């Protein structure tokens, strides 16, 4: 197949950016000290990483004359479900009283 050069370079850049954000999310998941901080790292960057890779896939598909409906569906599903699962995990952590290292205001101290 012979694609235009700028499409190949743009798709390559989007793929590399997406993979970079996935790697940043995993590093944050390993290195952050607290569960609630760790909850913050992958739920944002993973959607950005998967979004970049799916954007590159959509660009290549439309350059080859194939409508990228499946990619659009995947990115919509990931974007919708990532905040929901993060919210449910935060609720579960609050219910289990997972320790937090955040400073607590004296009026908010429930213990």
């Amino acid at each position: 197949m012979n694609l235009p050069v700028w499409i190949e370079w743009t798709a390559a850049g989007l793929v590399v950016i997406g993979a970079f954000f996935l790697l940043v999310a995993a590093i944050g998941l390993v290195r952050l000290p607290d569960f609630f901080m760790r909850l913050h790292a992958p739920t944002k960057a993973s959607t950005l990483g998967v979004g970049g890779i799916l954007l590159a896939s959509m660009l290549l598909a439309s350059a080859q004359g194939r409508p990228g409906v499946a990619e659009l569906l995947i990115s919509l599903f990931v974007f919708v479900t990532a905040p929901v699962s993060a919210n449910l995990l935060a609720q579960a952590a609050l219910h289990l009283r997972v320790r937090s290292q955040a400073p607590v205001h004296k009026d908010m101290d429930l213990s």
Partner: protein
Amino acid sequence: MNAPVLMWALNLASVAVAVAMVLCAWRLWLGPETTDRILALDTLYINMVALVVLLGLRWNTAMLFEVALLVSMLGFVGTVGLARYLTRGDVVE
């Protein structure tokens, strides 16, 4: 066959996603809390979706996107089920 630039980017991205999956597995092994382990599993599923899409780009086939959609759905259902089990004590009332 893809262009050299695209092939190089796909190789680099595959290695990066593989390293990210190893780091998630490390958190899954380590995680002091149960919610940490569920979060690591959720991130592993998202990395899996990215890896399947990268393989679909590499082999230039449209067949793997349904696989990626199924993986993302299963990951979401698994995460919601585990979180609800931790919160309520049962999944379906």
